[in-house]
């Protein structure tokens, strides 16, 4: 395998890891605050559809991104209402959001565009194009480092850079700010937060809305950067993979980056080597496609050592008595 092939696979890894990373960080904010969010998938899907639809109609990808984020935020608000205000079951609310998004997106797409549940293919103005970083062209011919810079680091859409910048940002927010301290506290012991005179409800809503924001960006990325338009179920389980990555990362930001890169890498391999010839046996495309999901199962089965979730996760907060 030559350097260029390796770089292409890694480049593809970065692209495919981006939505996972955003969704994983989204889940991290929510779950660190004690709200389990199985609805990452649905929020991404809704954001993907609305970003593509609005971008197609207005011709502006930025307006599309805004619409996608708005859609995701509304679903987050719904999740918050159900699980924080009304103290409902967080898993059920999340599943409901996934169903809602899966059904509504196709329904609205069909009645709006009549293209079998798709949005029209986005033209260049309706998509996030690649950004060539300064000096990339000039350095392209430098051996080894040139191609790495040009192929791997440069030439992604703005959202990829946003996603990667979110990793240190998330770390900083969680571990270096007052908001982060309170957010982590409310996921571990909301009573401690309540007796300290801080509103548990407000903190949890803040966390859930940040989750919605990041899911919105992830969904918009899928439909307006990774691909050119919305198709039915285009998230393809990425929300669940992000959850697996979150557990894999034990709810920590830097580890979330590694975990999502690993999943992105597996997806990239599957995309490039449709039938992997192992010499004596050819691994069929289905097996390759299944790889990330198999890894998810393996991870969730607990092959990663002890992953302790936030202690108050999944529990609606009710004051004693």
């Amino acid at each position, binding site marked *: 395998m030559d350097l260029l092939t390796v770089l292409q696979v890694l480049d593809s890894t970065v692209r495919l890891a981006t939505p996972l990373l955003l969704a994983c960080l989204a889940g991290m904010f929510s779950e660190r605050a004690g709200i389990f969010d199985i609805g990452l998938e649905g929020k991404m899907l809704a954001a993907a559809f609305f970003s593509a639809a609005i971008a197609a109609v207005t011709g502006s990808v930025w307006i599309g991104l805004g619409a996608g984020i708005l859609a995701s935020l509304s679903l987050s608000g719904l999740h918050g209402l159900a699980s924080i205000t009304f103290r409902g079951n967080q898993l059920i609310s999340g599943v409901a959001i996934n169903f809602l998004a899966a059904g509504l997106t196709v329904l609205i797409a069909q009645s709006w565009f009549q293209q079998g549940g798709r949005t029209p293919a986005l033209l260049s103005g309706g998509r996030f194009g690649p950004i060539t970083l300064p000096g990339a062209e000039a350095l392209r011919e430098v051996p080894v480092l040139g191609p790495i810079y040009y192929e791997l680091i440069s030439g992604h859409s703005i959202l990829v850079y946003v996603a990667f910048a979110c990793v240190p940002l998330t770390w900083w927010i969680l571990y270096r*700010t007052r908001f982060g*301290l309170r957010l982590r506290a409310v996921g571990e012991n909301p009573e401690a937060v309540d*007796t*300290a*005179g801080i509103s548990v409800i407000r903190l949890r809503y803040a966390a859930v809305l940040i989750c919605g924001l990041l899911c919105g960006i992830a969904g918009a990325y899928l439909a307006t950067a990774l691909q050119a338009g919305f198709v039915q179920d285009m998230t393809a389980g990425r929300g669940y993979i992000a959850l697996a990555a979150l557990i894999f990362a034990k709810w920590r930001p830097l580890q979330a980056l590694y975990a999502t890169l690993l999943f992105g890498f597996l997806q990239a391999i599957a995309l490039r080597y449709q039938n992997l010839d192992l010499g004596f046996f050819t691994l069929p495309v289905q097996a390759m496609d299944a790889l990330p999901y198999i890894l998810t199962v393996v991870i969730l089965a607990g092959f990663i050592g002890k992953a302790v979730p936030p202690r108050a996760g999944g529990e609606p907060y009710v004051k*004693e008595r």
Partner: protein
Amino acid sequence: MTGQNANGARQATAAPDPQVPAIELRGISKAFGPVQANKDISMRVMPGTIHGIIGENGAGKSTLMSILYGFYKADAGEIMISGRPTLIPDSQAAIAAGIGMVFQHFKLVENFTVLENIILGVEGGGLLRPSLAKARAALKSLAEEYELNVDPDAVIEDIGVGQQQRVEILKALYRQADILILDEPTGVLTPAEADHLFRILRNLRDEGKTIILITHKLREIMEITDTVSVMRRGEMTATVKTAETSPEQLAELMVGRKVLLRVEKAPATPGKPVLEVENLRVVDAAGVERLRGVSLNIRAGEVLGLAGVAGNGQSELLEVLGGMMPATGQVLLNGQPIPLSGPHADGQSRRAAGIAHVPEDRQRKGLIMDYAAWENSVFGYHRDPAIGRGPLMRNAAILEHAEQQMQRFDVRPPNPRLAAKNFSGGNQQKVVLAREIERGPDLLLIGQPTRGVDIGAIEFIHQQIIALRDAGKAILLVSVELDEIMALSDRIAVIFDGRIMGEVPADQATAQELGLMMAGVATGKAA
């Protein structure tokens, strides 16, 4: 700490006027639905004193304090802090009024450091680094002032409960509290830790802080408070100077009738050995040996008390004998070996063999809190033909039986359809005890029989244990309350670090000797 204002939570007040009550409650009432938790309560707490509030569980002590701390809103009444009428709609307002609260169940974030827990809510800025540095300095001066030493960088889950409690006190002091409310603070402490806590509280009082101590333990009230208020059924029945009262009088005020504070019992008449334990060993999941060759025996008609500081293996011993944990070694019941591992080492087989078990943690291992009392009344005995036929349960019969049982054991309210969680601690314990001793087991394992149990119920539970002994049964009593062990036992064994340090007849035991053995010092009579 005056002058080092934590986050401007409040400006430090001038020295309090000793004539003006630090807290005055006027006509506080609070109802939860039909239950009147507090009825027209008026109370004055003078500054620089330790004021005890005593009452049985459910008397309304915690409700009253929760109103003071802004958790509940009173239906009627007025709160005056240092002579000024003050509204306390939430905890934030209570903190601003200089009130700090140390709850019975600590409100700490387990995987945070001491420092992080202390600044939570009073960080004083968007970034953590300066807040932590400020708290570290303040903590140092507080520690010197009040004997409140804790490592600021220790993680809460790694330190003992005594230290965790100090963190709670530090939290309140860091928030400039002048009034400190402690709810049942010694429930989780060893005697030495409790002594240390009392020293801290006296220091705080001498520095001019006002302390409210909520407890149901008469001994603590007599030992440390200046004034004591007694509550019964939502009402404040009396407020007296501690020096002018007696435990007997307080107990009577609490319960509304005369209470026997000592356990009356005749000398034991031990019969044949019921339980013989030989070289019992247990290794826990983390690979730590929790029991290191324990041997003991109990005869029919005697109570063996097992004393020890919590965490020295007594919990494991109970669980092994109760069939909840595998072990190696030999255990004979009435001369017959019982399995210590494998499919027949379970609670149900043990009960069938005649070993009843009242677990230490009754809320998690003795009851299912969401299940009704009648359902809880048959766990472990559900294969009994009187209770079930094959897969079917005779619900009507169980219900009726549970109702009679509850009346016999004076469970209040005697309503078998009520979920276990809706009973007070003492009544929950009576439900468990009734289930376990009703069928006349040969051996009763009982752990912390009166933890979180009010004084009226303690008397009843102690009487039941002695009655069972007098009926010729063997009893293994595990308790962290040394008083309880000494009052009930016929022989006392002390466990330390998974080994039996020694054994003494109860009538020759002294608290000093037992205390030494509990600390791991072998005495002359070591086994």
